[in-house]
């Protein structure tokens, strides 16, 4: 009974099992190798060598090795950038190439990296430890590094300006931020061109266009790119839209402000920076947290809203038209001055002002059927007011005090 029944399988099965053993060894080698193969090991080695060459071996020994990260708990950011970019605090590498370069010191004095991390200003993916994923642009990560290289891709007039977008996430309520020239330019334009006539910005403005307070949160998928050629990105969309609104949104009433390329690019950055990023209060000490009007602005607005031209302001005509005779100044000034509308309409269309308002043509037919819908009583008031404005204009003209007509 103490014998072994012969089995037909053992010979071949043993070889198969041996083969699988080899496969297991191969798989172990593969996954261990792929887990260890990262460029940061080389960068750390190279940086240590550079420190040793410049400051001696003793200093080099103090360069940390292994994965490094900055944990900024208030901003909930774990930035591993310093695994490769080890030089940020080392004086003496100001001229070195990345990732061995010293970070400009001045900005770090007010924005210590230990508190702010890296990505809150620079963008990029702090979780990642390899350059392609960390720098982007990469699929499924919408915050690429706001580098000059990316700026060049967009043919920015000022290549490095994209970074300022992230300054403005915290500094959004400042009128002027030191060092953020493109954003400052854009903010000036917002006031000069009167964007608030149509758009709510920071909680204040008109309702003809969409509320822009948090428009930076809008997902890239939510834009209509069907009329945009070239890059399909939210930023490219805004630049093109600011330059020629009607080319992207066919039925828009937003006027073309003839922005220069630089102005359009700066405004697009400003618009994309309007995000709902929760900024801890301690980070905003000393910075304004709302966007109040200056006393002069308030006074000018009060004058327009209560002066003789109040009706035109209330109705919304002033968005496009100044009525200079009544002291109403349009922010956009894209329509003719209504002070002389009574005469002007007659000479342009060969129709009386009553007739034109009842059956408008061109742009006015769009505006009066969608944005400003007037009842017949309101139309009668409009005609009445326009006649008054014209009378006032003639009176001022005779007295020689008439303001120059806009447009």
């Amino acid at each position, binding site marked *: *009974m*103490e*014998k*072994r*029944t012969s*089995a*037909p*399988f*053992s010979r071949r*099965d*043993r070889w*198969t*099992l041996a083969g*699988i*053993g080899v*496969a*297991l060894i*191969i*798989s*172990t080698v*593969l*996954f*261990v190798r*792929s*887990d260890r193969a990262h460029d940061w090991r080389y960068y750390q080695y190279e940086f240590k060598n550079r420190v040793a060459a410049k400051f001696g071996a003793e200093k080099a020994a103090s360069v940390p090795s292994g*994965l490094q*990260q900055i944990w900024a708990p208030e901003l*909930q950011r*774990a930035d*591993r950038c310093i695994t490769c970019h080890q030089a940020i605090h080392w004086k003496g590498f100001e001229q070195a190439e990345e990732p061995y370069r010293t970070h400009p010191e001045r900005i770090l004095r007010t924005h210590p990296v230990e508190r702010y991390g890296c990505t809150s200003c620079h*963008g990029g993916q702090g*979780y*990642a*430890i390899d350059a392609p*994923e960390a720098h982007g*642009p990469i*699929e*499924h*990560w*919408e*915050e*690429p590094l*706001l580098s000059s290289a*990316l700026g060049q891709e967009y043919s920015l007039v000022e290549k490095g300006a*994209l970074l300022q977008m992230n300054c403005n996430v915290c500094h959004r309520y400042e009128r002027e931020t030191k060092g953020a020239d493109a954003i400052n330019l854009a903010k000036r334009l917002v006031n000069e061109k009167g964007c608030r006539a149509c758009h709510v910005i920071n909680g204040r403005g008109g309702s003809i266009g969409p509320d822009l307070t948090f428009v930076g949160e809008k*997902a*890239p*998928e*939510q*834009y209509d*790119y069907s009329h945009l050629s070239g890059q*399909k*990105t*939210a*930023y490219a969309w805004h630049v093109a839209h600011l330059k020629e609104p009607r080319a992207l949104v066919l039925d828009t009433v937003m006027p073309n402000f003839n922005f220069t390329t630089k102005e359009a690019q700066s405004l697009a950055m400003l618009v*994309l920076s309007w995000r709902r990023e929760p900024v801890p209060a301690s980070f905003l000490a000393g910075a304004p947290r709302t966007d109040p009007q200056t006393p002069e602005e308030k006074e000018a607005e009060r004058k327009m809203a209560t002066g003789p031209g109040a009706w035109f302001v209330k109705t919304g005509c002033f968005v496009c038209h100044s009525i200079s005779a009544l002291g109403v100044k349009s922010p956009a000034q894209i329509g003719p001055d209504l002070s002389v509308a009574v005469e002007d309409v007659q000479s342009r269309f060969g129709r009386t002002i009553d007739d034109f308002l009842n059956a408008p043509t061109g742009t006015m037919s769009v505006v009066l059927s969608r944005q400003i819908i007037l009842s017949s009583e309101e139309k009668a008031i409009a005609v009445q007011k326009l006649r008054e404005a014209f009378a006032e204009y003639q009176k001022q003209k005779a007295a020689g005090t008439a303001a120059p007509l806009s447009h």
Partner: protein
Amino acid sequence: MRGDPMATKPTTQKPQAPGVHPRRLWSIQPVSDRQAGDAVVSNFILHWFPAKALKDSLAWRYSLWLGTISAALLLLLVLSGLPLLFLHVPSVERAYASVKDIEYVVTFGYWIRSVHRFAAHLMVAAVFLHLMRVFLTGAYKNGVGQNQHREWNWVLGVGMLLLTLLLSFTGYLLPWDQLAFWAVTVGTNIASAVPLVGPQIRELLLGGRAIDQPTLIRFYALHVIVLPGALGALFAYHMWRIRKDGGLASADHGTRLPTRADCSPSSTKTYTLLGVARGTGPTIRAFSTEAPNLTVNSIPDLTRRIAIVVLGTIAAVSILAVFVHSPLEEPANPLVTPNPAKAPWYFLWLQEIVTDTTIKLGSWTVNGALVGGVILPGLLIALLTAWPWLDKSPGAAAGRWFPQTRRTQNLVFLVLVLAVLALTLVGTFCRGPYWNFYWPWQSWPELPRRI
């Protein structure tokens, strides 16, 4: 092991009770049938195997070992799931970041996660293929043995397939990225098409009316405790039933002896109870319904093959996971629907049917979610479950590939499977934005980015 005195000098050695010997490990190369049998009796892990296995049931070509592959994948899922359990944080605020950490900075993290994901997807496929094999060979039919109830093991199997799908589906949500969020949105919206109680079912699944923290913690608890526990219990029952039903159906033919064979009583065959009866057990007479030349010792012939299949599966998944990383999309955003929003691939045939049966005829609309999401899969599952009782083919058809007597039902089954497969392929590879049809070689419209 060859130097074992008991094995080399059996005649001079005083007979000892089998199953009670000082060695801690079993021999992988037993020198006698008794030593091979001892391993089964004396080892905790091996005791679930029979002492002898029929050669027919070990054949590669009959079972394709798909059940063992499924079990190997389940083992791999448990093993790779354990480290993930320590690393993943099931909270809306942190889940995504914790998966990013697993992906980028945890040692071997990306590989563990990929192994888990691959094993999960492959397990859905392996379990389904196993079901196909069992159907096509009629292995749910009872053969010649006494008290066989293979039909109930089939029902258990259908239940295990559903549990596998649910496990995979609940795991889908845990990374809390766009893929997770919207796949679960599609899946649970289909559930809400159930008549009368649909919205309530969805609310029960989600723990509210939107996918949020309550959903995440529900899916998490289901994924790591409830469903694996249930699957483990069913798995144990499934294995037990195989032993009770006399092994694989293919082996039924081998066991058909004209008469019961009388095995000569052996002087060493004794009963031992936990070794109490060392060397003094009563000798009994034994009978067998199995012809001795049709069997091999389970150890090592069966265990070696199991090792081949289990380790082979592990090696294959492990190598795949090195080269194909698991995707992680943007953080979940309820306000932005990716276009297209797709269910997990094994539900895409349903999503395809849902869209194809959503027809508007004037004011009259066919509710596709009801037809494709509830009625059709419900019908298919009911039919699958009941099939052993509807299949009237003779018992001799059990355990053979494509027997003449089961040709029609096998053909119908294959046609249905092919239809499901075709719809899955269309849903996976040919559906682009707005569920429009694109050939795999046609490019989709460019996906927009922020900057």
